[in-house]
């Protein structure tokens, strides 16, 4: 096993070095689909934080009971349970957000980040480490989605979190809130990330 790294490193790796969207290119489906505004990106991220942290905690607790042969179905049941909880809670308490995210909340079940973290981390580490790792990864995901959504919203509508930023004379770039805008922005963000890393390595 790799040597133990400190808890803070465990947390921080999700934000940058192993950022699920920018570095590992996981969970791109929701990252591209729901980020037409800052608030949608943030809400999707919050739903993922909840699901990932809860699933990681439970899987890590039960890691010694779950037989190897049925680990994947067990992970999926646990994840699906928390996704359903998140979905129902959103529909009950934040109906507008639930309406905007549409079918993408139930689809968190098949988000690779979550299953990936259970398989790669939570099922092999203690509860504390699993939760810290889950927090780091999901917060990294959330920050990325929020930036992605805000950027698209800024150029596509002229606002950030529905607050007017651009001057009245600004003509919104419709393409930014449509699907191509998601690919363009994500590509730019990955490019900038790689460039920063390359500079740091020098």
């Amino acid at each position, binding site marked *: 096993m790799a040597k133990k790294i400190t808890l803070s490193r465990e947390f921080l790796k999700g934000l940058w070095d192993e950022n699920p969207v920018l570095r590992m290119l996981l969970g791109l489906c929701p990252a591209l689909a729901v980020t037409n505004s800052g608030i949608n990106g943030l809400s999707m991220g919050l739903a993922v934080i909840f699901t990932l942290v809860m699933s990681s905690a439970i899987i890590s607790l039960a890691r010694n009971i779950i037989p190897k042969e049925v680990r994947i179905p067990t992970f999926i*049941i646990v994840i699906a*349970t928390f996704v359903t909880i998140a979905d129902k*809670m959103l529909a009950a*308490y934040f109906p507008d957000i639930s309406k905007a995210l*549409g079918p993408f909340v139930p689809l968190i079940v098949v988000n690779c980040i979550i299953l990936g973290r259970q398989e790669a981390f939570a099922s092999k580490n203690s509860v504390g480490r699993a939760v810290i790792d889950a927090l780091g990864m999901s917060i990294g995901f959330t920050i990325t989605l929020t930036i992605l959504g805000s950027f698209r919203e800024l150029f596509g509508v*002229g606002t950030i979190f529905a607050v007017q930023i651009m001057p009245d004379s600004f003509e919104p770039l419709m393409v930014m809130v*449509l699907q191509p805008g998601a690919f363009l922005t994500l590509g730019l963000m990955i490019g900038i990330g790689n460039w920063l890393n390359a500079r740091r390595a020098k």
Partner: protein
Amino acid sequence: MTKSYKLILVLTMTAILSGLLLSFLNLHTKPLIEAHQDNVLNSALSSVLPNSVKIEEKIIENQQFYFGYDKQNRMSGVAFLAEGNGFQSKLRILVGMDETLTRIVKIKILEQKETPGLGTKIETDPSSRSNPEWFPNQFDNLNVRQPIRYVKNQAADKNNSEIMAITGATISCKAVVDIINATLNINREIIRKNTDLACPAGAGVPEDEIIPNLIAEDYEIKVIEGKSYYINRDNSGKVTEVAFTASGVGFQSRIKVLVCMNPDFSEIQSLRILEQNETPGCGTRIVKDTKNETDQEWFIKQFNSLKVTQPVTCVEKSPKKSNGEVQAISGATVSSETIVEILNNSIQNYRDSYLK
């Protein structure tokens, strides 16, 4: 062996725990979610039926209607759901109409998932800061005697049932217009058949099926004290004819008649049976008497120019028209009497409200 038991046990336990947890959650969230959906519908209903204090929900011929009533319990508007496909998603629109069904009061887009930033403008347009709901607001007080049309790059003439389409979202706009027009046509026919509300004909139905001796194409529909009238005028604007529909239960079915009166309500100009499902060959003779070879419509023609200053009576033979008498069809007495009864019950009522 023990290994496979463990596999089954772990999976079963996980599934049972998950099921239990979710069913408890559902108990808690279900009422909240339902209450929210009711709230959305109710607030939409009160905005499209602004003059109504009581709203009655009714399903007629598989179509959902909301009838609004004012403080005096008089009909003050009708709302219905219009559904259909937009550019890329299903559209659900709540349409509120005034009590004459000739004017849209307001529409509310309840559900749409059109292209963000383009088609979504049919609900709200964030690029218009002063009036983000300019598109749905165009339907406020829109005259819909004729089908709604959309225009592009020019000012819309509201009196001509025109609205302006959104640049870049023409298909979504066309879908809204088409869905409302189509549903309006279907629903008007349903309302005309099933209620006593006066209502313009749906497309494809000749107008003279509603009101005979039509002078102008645009007869007026007026609601007085919750009762609706078709009013026909001559070229100088003088009222020539007032008509209304009334219904009652005949021998075995609901009979609905259109009564055309002269403007002072002293005389029936003509009578027309709109709906009946009486015994074929007996009760149906009120419409077409197959046993009378000279004039199959003799029964209904008796009502032409019949004075109604006194109640109409039904006699077995030799009726005196000047006394308000008509002859019953022997063998269809109940159906004949029902027609007379419907007239006696309704004319007084409609006369009082109209002459006020």
